[in-house]
């Protein structure tokens, strides 16, 4: 009796295994197919004779990367992207931290309308925003350049300051636009995150004698770290991948960001140099991967056990 039961259950597990194996095989094939382009990009980037076909490289070379940094202004593009997107991410996190906290704690009647208003910004497709945003930026640009011209008469200094602080074709403008585009999602993430942090911690801190700033510094920020990591990662990766805004709001080659540089290189080169382009793609991907690796440590960090229930 017992033996019968066992053998039938073994049958079940065997067929189970077989069907599972088939499922895994299918999944592996599909993922291999999907990952093909990435293999190709990575292989071709180091292949002295890169072509548009997936092939095992004959040797390994760093020439393509050298080419980017030596002959093209690759370093400049990377730095521009890192500085602009990095600053935008930090700015986004600061605003989202304050905004998310306030929106989480307030009980005011305008809370919901405002939250939905904020996310609306995210829902409108960015191209639809370009014209009105450009108009506003143009206005601000005239104003700031007026200020700069008043501040100094030295043309070289004027140019330098203008590059920094211009709203169009300047670092400040791009940083602010990236920040504005990434802020809605970041605020929502942070708001939801603060919702999950009981008010008790702040009250306990208040009774422990912590000032507002000390509460933020020692209690709220550490507890909200996973939230900041998630919001920051999304902001960084979205802004890093953004092509449209740098295209619309910069013109001088000194301000060119990585995606723009890549795009223009792609257009300019007559005979397509796959090695060069794939090396660019690798460089372009790397920071996003690094950002993810960096954020992952905090993302998985969850705090529990502080309050009962």
């Amino acid at each position, binding site marked *: 009796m017992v033996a019968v039961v066992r053998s039938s259950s073994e049958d079940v597990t065997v067929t189970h295994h077989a069907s599972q194996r088939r499922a895994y095989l299918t999944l592996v094939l599909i993922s291999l197919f999907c990952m093909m382009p990435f293999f190709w990009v990575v292989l071709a980037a180091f292949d002295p004779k890169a072509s548009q076909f997936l092939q095992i490289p004959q040797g390994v070379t760093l020439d393509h990367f050298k080419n980017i940094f030596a002959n093209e202004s690759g370093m400049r593009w990377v730095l521009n992207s890192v500085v602009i997107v990095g600053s935008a991410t930090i700015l986004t996190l600061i605003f989202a931290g304050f905004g998310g906290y306030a929106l989480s704690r307030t009980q005011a009647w305008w809370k919901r309308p405002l939250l939905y208003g904020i996310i609306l910004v995210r829902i409108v497709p960015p191209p639809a925003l370009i014209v009105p945003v450009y108009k506003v930026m143009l206005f601000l640009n005239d104003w700031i350049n007026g200020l700069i011209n008043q501040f100094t008469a030295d043309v070289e200094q004027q140019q330098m300051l203008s590059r920094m602080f211009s709203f169009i074709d300047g670092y400040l403008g791009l940083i602010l636009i990236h920040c504005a585009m990434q802020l809605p999602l970041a605020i929502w993430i942070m708001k939801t995150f603060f919702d999950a942090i009981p008010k*008790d911690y702040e009250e*306990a801190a208040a*009774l*422990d004698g912590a000032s507002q700033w000390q509460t933020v510094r020692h209690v709220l920020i550490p507890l909200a770290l996973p939230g900041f990591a998630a919001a920051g990662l999304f902001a960084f990766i979205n802004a890093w991948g953004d092509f449209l805004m740098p295209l619309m709001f910069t013109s001088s080659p000194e301000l060119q960001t990585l995606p723009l540089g890549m795009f223009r290189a792609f257009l300019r080169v007559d005979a397509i140099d796959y090695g060069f382009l794939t090396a660019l793609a690798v460089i372009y991907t790397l920071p996003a991967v690094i950002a993810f690796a960096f954020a992952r440590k905090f993302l998985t960090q969850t705090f*529990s*056990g502080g309050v*009962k229930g």
Partner: protein
Amino acid sequence: MSHIELIDIKKNYLGTEVVKGISVTIDQGEFAVIVGPSGCGKSTLLRMIAGLEDISSGELRIGGKVMNHVSPDQREIAMVFQSYALYPHMTVEENIGFALALKKVDKAEIKRRVMEAAQMLELEHLLERKPAALSGGQRQRVAIGRAIVKRPKVILFDEPLSNLDAKLRVQMRTELMRLHREFGSTVVYVTHDQVEAMTMAQKIIVLHNGYVSQLGKPMQLYREPENTFVAQFIGVPKMNLLRGKLQGNNFYLQSGQVVDIGNGYTSGNDLQLGIRPEHLKLQATSTQGGWTVDVVERLGVESFVHLHNATMEQLVVRVEGDCELAADIQVNLQFDAASCFLFSDKGQRLLRKPAIEQAAG
């Protein structure tokens, strides 16, 4: 000096009054327990004392100083939260020492005082752990450690034991009383558990719907409840209440049964007779006792017999030791006349006229 005076304290939440005018004085070093059913405003009152909640009207004084608009950290108060609220990203040691670290107390001194608190609470071996790796009782002790390390003049507790199992609760009760003796801080302790109130308090404040229903020493509340709410809230099982009318010494229940409650009370209709389960005696089972057994709860040391009569009025009787009664058996009851309370229809305690007056009138 750290006595607490509440003078006509009220609290409104958007128009609804949840604390409706409370005036209480808690003496220095006293262990005061605020007790009441869920939602009666206990936490709100405590949070107003702590400064976490604005006081809508009235005056709060601690040590003689008006505290209405003093920020929480300036009140020299510590609070143990209903939820513990341990900082989950800090170790036990950091949790306990946080208040001192904020005050820029010398590192060695912090270490010394944290160790001292930890020894008192038997937490030495847990100092390196995070709250997530602690049991409920250990978290509770860390929360207490965080409060006492500041050497506050006043410690507030909000239902600190409500999440612990029965055995640990008993243990923590004695712990807390010992700590109170050692520290001499004024303690305000909120609970909905009347057993905690009875065992720990030097003064009990019974809250009901935002009002103080009665306040006094534990046994005073037990012996002299001023109304049916306190009468039923203090004591387990709760006091039995029976409606009826009084003529002379005889209380007529709705079922027509008569109880002799002794002399001194003024006759009247629509009254309530109160008697505690421990002041009732079951008499040898008879066939027409008028009370029918529903359920018997047998605990070994004592048994509680639930009864009903012809008009389905319910009663509980405490019987010393074991009691083997089958359901549906008829029994007779003997009321201890001296222990009978009389309440008005609305639930106010009615008093016996003193003997001299009785003689005169």
